[in-house]
């Protein structure tokens, strides 16, 4: 059977690689396995093995989830500038971006799953089979849009890749609308995730209308920063030629996004501190600490300085257009935003709690191990995606009937055979 043959050949492709590939995969599998071991213990003992408690009922898992939803959204939003500025090679950028979004989405969904007290009851969330509380619960919205987005970001690249495998042009009238649809969906997943917190008047720290715009702005920093690093990695290990110019352009976009992010943050800080109401407590806890409770203070200030430094480095052409400083700025952004919208966003929502109690949450080994395990799983999935996708988009991995033809230059002039047609142009 044809599909089976494709599958078998893909499997061979995935299993064969250079030693560095094996070491990388083995490392990721090892980290994932450690996380899995901790997870089984968590399932047996209950969530009491984490440091979450009634006062702070969400922790590191949900912090990572929030961050990764942003990354997943930004990976696809990058398609817009890619089209506008004619980044080359466009098809590769779309495919890689969407596969990266899919990997991030898998990580985000897995993190929520890790956070569920009764994972075996997940079927209660399945529409029509369970009892999904759509539309009143924002979590129900999130289940639908996140899974829809995941489906879209697997379907689009797989469609393009399979077409390339057969040396056929993708049907643009079919796939372009889907790609375009994935753009509002990207905005949608992050907005819904923001609304998930935003819609809780019990938590004044989250109940600010600036939340969704802040989420999008910060996602447009961290997502592209990761993409810049990944594009360089892909460029180094494959023969895909991603021009420096494209990276610099993305970096410039991060500068604008970071400006917006810092501006929105400033607007929120002004409003809270100047009005100085009863609702000041969470943001005070975050930036100044309350009494002896200062766990987040060094983190949030590091995040602030990392973000400001990254902004300047992306803004100044001298640092933006040098690979080393560019990468440092990306790293600053990735870490800075992770703190800002991960722990620096989720935890102050719970501290102090609605009755004024302060429980200082610091994640424990179990939570670190499980979260890291999920990151490793995501990276592994992305690696395997790339292992198959890169040879296909480069035209090295094709159906066997085309393999012979490529050996004969005289036949490859045939119009339908050129696999690297520019999508959308």
């Amino acid at each position, binding site marked *: 059977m044809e599909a089976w043959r494709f599958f078998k050949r893909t499997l061979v492709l995935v299993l064969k690689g250079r030693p560095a590939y094996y070491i990388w995969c083995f490392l990721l599998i090892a980290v994932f396995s450690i996380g899995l071991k901790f997870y089984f213990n968590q399932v047996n*003992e*209950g*969530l*009491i093995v984490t440091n*979450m*408690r*009634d*006062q702070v*009922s*969400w922790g590191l898992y949900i912090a990572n989830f929030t961050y990764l939803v942003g990354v997943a959204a930004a990976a696809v939003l990058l398609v817009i500038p890619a089209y506008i500025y004619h980044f080359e090679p466009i098809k590769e950028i779309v495919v890689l971006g969407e596969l990266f979004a899919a990997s991030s989405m898998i990580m985000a969904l897995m993190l*929520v799953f890790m*956070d*569920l*007290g*009764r*994972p*075996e*009851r*997940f*079927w*209660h*969330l*399945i529409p*029509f*089979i*369970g*009892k*999904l*509380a759509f539309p*009143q*619960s*924002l*979590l*129900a919205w999130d*289940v639908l849009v996140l899974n829809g987005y995941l489906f879209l970001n697997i379907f689009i690249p797989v469609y393009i890749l399979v077409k390339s495998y057969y040396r056929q042009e993708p049907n643009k009238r079919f796939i372009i609308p889907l790609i375009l649809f994935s753009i509002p969906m990207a905005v949608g997943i992050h907005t819904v995730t923001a609304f*998930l*917190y935003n*819609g*809780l*008047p*019990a*938590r004044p720290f989250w109940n600010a209308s600036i939340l969704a715009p802040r989420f999008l702005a910060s996602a447009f920093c961290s997502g592209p920063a990761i993409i810049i690093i990944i594009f360089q990695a892909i460029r180094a290990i494959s023969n895909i030629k991603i021009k420096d110019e494209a990276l610099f352009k993305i970096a410039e976009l991060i500068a604008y996004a970071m400006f917006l992010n810092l501006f929105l943050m400033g607007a929120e800080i002004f409003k809270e501190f100047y009005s100085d109401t*009863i609702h000041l*407590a969470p943001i005070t806890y975050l930036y100044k600490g309350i009494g002896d409770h200062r766990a987040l203070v060094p983190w949030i200030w590091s995040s602030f300085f990392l973000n400001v430094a990254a902004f300047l480095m992306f803004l100044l052409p001298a640092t933006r257009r040098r690979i080393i400083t560019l990468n440092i700025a990306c790293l600053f952004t990735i870490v800075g935003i992770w703190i800002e919208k991960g722990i620096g966003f989720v935890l102050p*929502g*719970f501290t*102090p*709690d*609605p*009755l*004024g*109690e302060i429980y200082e949450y610091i994640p424990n080994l179990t939570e670190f191990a499980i979260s890291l395990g999920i990151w490793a799983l995501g990276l592994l999935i992305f690696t395997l995606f790339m292992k198959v996708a890169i040879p296909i988009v480069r035209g090295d991995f094709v159906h066997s009937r085309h393999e012979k033809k490529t050996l004969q230059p005289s036949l490859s002039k045939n119009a339908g055979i050129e696999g690297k047609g520019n999508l959308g142009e």
Partner: protein
Amino acid sequence: MADKLYTRRDVVKVISFSLLAGSGLLGSSCVNKEATEEFLQRHYLEMTEDEKKRVVKRLEERYRKDYGVKFNISTEAAKKGTLWGYGLDLSRCIGCRRCVYACVRENNNSRHDPQVHLIRVLRLKKGNLINLEHSEHYYNPEHVPEEGFIYMPVQCQHCENPPCVKVCPVKATWKEPDGLVVVDYNWCIGCRYCMAACPYKGRVFNWAEPKIPKEEINGEVHYLGNRPRMKNVVEKCTFCIQRVRSGRYPACVEACPTGTRKFGNLLDQESEIRYLIENKRVFRLKEDLNTEPKFYYFFSL
């Protein structure tokens, strides 16, 4: 419908169940019949009377095995014409926490690791009522009441417009016709979104399997109330649904030595709670959130 052996829904459930079992997530325990039944158990509001009876029988047997006590699990529905309301007299509360411990015993709450309390008594400095950030939750003096403080017990406020119910992604929690906000512990997926949504800290989580001394078990339970919970599900005060639906006061009302706690039917014009609302200056916590609690605080003195 009735003569069909399996509905499409059942088939899908069995398929998803086998997939899960196959993936090893449930481990070997899922192979036995009881666990399978529990896994496939429907939402409480969708169960037929027969299904309820079967589930109750299974649970009664399990609890008897686990705790060595005979259990009587009620599924008594709300009585027509009842809407439960609570009154709390801040002038009288001395902060002794007898209500807290009566509640723990009545409701079969986990005693340690985690210690689950459905009532929390806040100690507030006199002159300060609204800003709870200055409240003390773990006061522990030799004697109560202390000079210069007042005490404010807080528990689930049984909102008419409950934010916890609105956010639950699987409808595992709802407001009963008599106004009680309840949880189907067998339907809760443990996502804890309701805990984030509650402005009163009315919900607590069973972070581990509850630990209850066998000799302190209360075998008179309601399915939606004080039956022993399992690990990793949320729970809350139900105004002692097992008691109030059979004509008794909640345990906290009975335990209070100062008459701080009042309880009654808001639809009954002759009830004490109605008298209090009409004749005292009552207020409710965080009224700005529009949650419309049925829990009224007042000062009698």
